[in-house]
């Protein structure tokens, strides 16, 4: 037996074969029909659809043969694959290539063989449709050759059909899975046509709004919108029509029973292949519980801080009176104790104020009075306002000239609060006689304010949590210690301005805190 060798495009050919997903699948009548016809018409006992992979020929259909596969090296079909043309062997015992083949010497004792290539549309030869006889025979007539070739082509078509069917099955399975996910995801998922008519309605939507799919589908989406919010809804739809998604927009929707529900909705446009808008999908999540918790938390913080402030007013007032000397000069030994108590009462006040501030900021309850601002003027004002505190630390504040002529939209008082925080931090961590510099630069449509100190730098271990609440590297000095909330408040303020805040630091060199705000053209 002389093995056939491999065709030049063997790797691609194998890829193509595996792409049909047919190897080792059960027999199918659609393929058996061809082998039956071939055997009948050519009057042979055996006909096969043989697919040749790396190591074997495997029979998708076999008429008159019990074996499911044989080694590739034994296979007559390997020659058809290698040479990519029809192969006819009249008497294998007289052909040097096959005379000692186990398939000739032993079962099924092949004498006559004729195989036509199964050639794909991309010209990969996957195997053969072949007929076999145990008796030597004369070659095929031209009509028989044409018939075998035609049948082989029909087998290839059947292979494509098989491939399409399995792809379809996979797609249907994926779609069914996706459908199940959407149906039972817990959120209300609603499909709408371009004109706002509801086209799909999942279980989550039924649970949230109370309408069954039959009641909801075909209705207009404004069914769920409280009359007062129709304007908002229309703006949202316009936004979608412009091609942009709306993400996690908090609003109110109307349930079937008339109840208003706090929801977070995300809307996305649905497009056809050409990019045309065919509708939009809405995902709505019930956030009423979350809203209640937020409200309760806000009330709690507000109440607690009020309840804390009242006794604190008495404590700070009493200590302040002792300090003021209204009851006479304090004894030398007592004075430092009163100072400590007074400083700590002040720190408690700052803490409560900051806590309230950040709580409101996080709840989105702080109203920002936005106006066009000359950022350079704001920086200079912050330098003037905070110079006094810096002096008490033996530190000088200085602008890095020139400050860029940047204009932003912002809340002046809140941005001054950010600057005060950054400047007092920088002063606090500067060496005596140190200088804190403030730069204002422009680039890529943003204005950047940098507050630069030449202090010890931020310890490695502290860097990752510097913007977290109650994070302080060193809180040992009560008189000047912050509350550990300043930077989280700063960052929250900057983010409410659509800006970002970050820092760079190097041990022994210093730290730069900076924030970027979107610039506006004057």
């Amino acid at each position: 037996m002389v093995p056939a060798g491999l065709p030049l495009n063997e790797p691609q050919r194998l890829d193509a074969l595996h792409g049909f997903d047919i190897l080792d699948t059960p027999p199918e009548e659609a393929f058996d029909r061809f082998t039956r016809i071939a055997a009948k018409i050519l009057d042979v006992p055996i006909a096969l659809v043989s697919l040749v992979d790396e190591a074997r020929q495997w029979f998708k259909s076999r008429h008159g043969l019990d074996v499911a596969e044989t080694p590739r090296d034994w296979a007559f079909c390997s020659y058809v694959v290698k040479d990519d043309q029809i192969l006819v062997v009249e008497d294998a015992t007289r052909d040097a290539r096959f005379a000692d083949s186990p398939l000739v010497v032993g079962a099924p004792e092949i004498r006559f063989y004729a195989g036509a290539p199964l050639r794909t549309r991309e010209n990969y030869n996957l195997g053969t449709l072949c007929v076999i006889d145990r008796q030597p025979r004369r070659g095929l007539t031209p009509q028989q050759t044409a018939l075998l070739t035609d049948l082989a082509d029909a087998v290839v078509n059947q292979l494509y059909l098989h491939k399409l069917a399995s792809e379809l099955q996979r797609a249907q399975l994926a779609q069914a899975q996706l459908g199940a996910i959407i149906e039972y995801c817990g959120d209300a998922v609603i499909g709408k046509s371009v004109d706002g008519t509801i086209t799909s309605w999942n279980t989550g939507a039924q649970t949230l709004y109370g309408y069954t799919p039959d009641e909801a589908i075909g209705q207009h989406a404004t069914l769920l919108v409280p009359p007062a919010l129709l304007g908002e809804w229309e703006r949202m739809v316009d936004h979608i029509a412009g091609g942009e998604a709306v993400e996690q927009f908090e609003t109110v929707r109307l349930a079937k029973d008339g109840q208003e529900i706090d929801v977070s909705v995300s809307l996305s446009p649905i497009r056809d292949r050409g990019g045309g808008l065919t509708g939009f999908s809405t995902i709505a999540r019930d956030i009423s519980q979350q809203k209640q918790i937020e409200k309760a938390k806000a009330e709690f913080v507000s109440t607690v801080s009020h309840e804390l402030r009242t006794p604190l007013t008495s404590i700070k007032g009493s200590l302040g009176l002792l300090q003021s000397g209204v009851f006479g000069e304090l004894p030398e030994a007592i004075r430092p104790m009163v100072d400590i108590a007074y400083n700590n009462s002040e720190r408690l006040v700052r803490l409560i104020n900051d806590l309230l501030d950040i709580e409101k900021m996080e709840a989105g309850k702080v109203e920002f009075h936005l106006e066009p601002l000359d950022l350079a003027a704001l920086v200079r004002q912050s330098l003037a306002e905070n110079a006094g505190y810096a002096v008490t630390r033996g530190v000088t504040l200085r602008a890095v000239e020139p400050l860029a002529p940047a204009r932003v939209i912002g809340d002046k008082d809140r941005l001054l609060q950010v600057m005060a925080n950054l400047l007092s931090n920088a002063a606090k961590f500067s060496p005596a006689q140190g200088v804190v510099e403030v730069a204002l630069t422009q680039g890529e449509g943003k204005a950047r304010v940098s507050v630069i100190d030449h202090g010890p730098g931020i310890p490695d271990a502290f860097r990752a949590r510097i913007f977290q609440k109650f994070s302080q590297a060193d809180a040992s000095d009560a008189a000047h210690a912050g509350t550990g909330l300043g930077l989280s408040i700063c960052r929250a303020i900057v983010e409410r301005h659509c800006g970002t805040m970050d820092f760079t630091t190097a041990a022994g060199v210093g730290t730069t805190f900076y924030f970027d705000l979107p610039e506006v053209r004057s």
Partner: protein
Amino acid sequence: MRALKRILHVEDAADIRKIVEIILVRMGNYTVLQCASGDEAVEKAAAFAPDLVLLDVMMPGLDGPQTLEELRAREGLRDTPVVFMTAKVQSGEVEMLKALGAVEVLAKPFDPATLCSRIEEIWARHHGA
């Protein structure tokens, strides 16, 4: 501008009344009447004829804003400047209290050392000085 002499202080917390009394009387030399509730203030204010009222916001019974309204309705107190003292400095609250007619809103806790000077500033500003 005449000098500020008579201050009516309305506050339900006894400790704070005591402290404010010491500040106003001993540090500021004012004549002070203290009331523990809005109702008491409404009852006694006209007879005391204060130059200025320091008014707590959150009190049982008549609260600060209600007390202010009652005082405004009384002869002789219609134009008396009222300063709120509040421990609940929420956003919008200061604006709201000023809109009710208060000339200023002071946050609690206050600084005892500067309370008198702040009140004098408010008094001067109120008289357009």
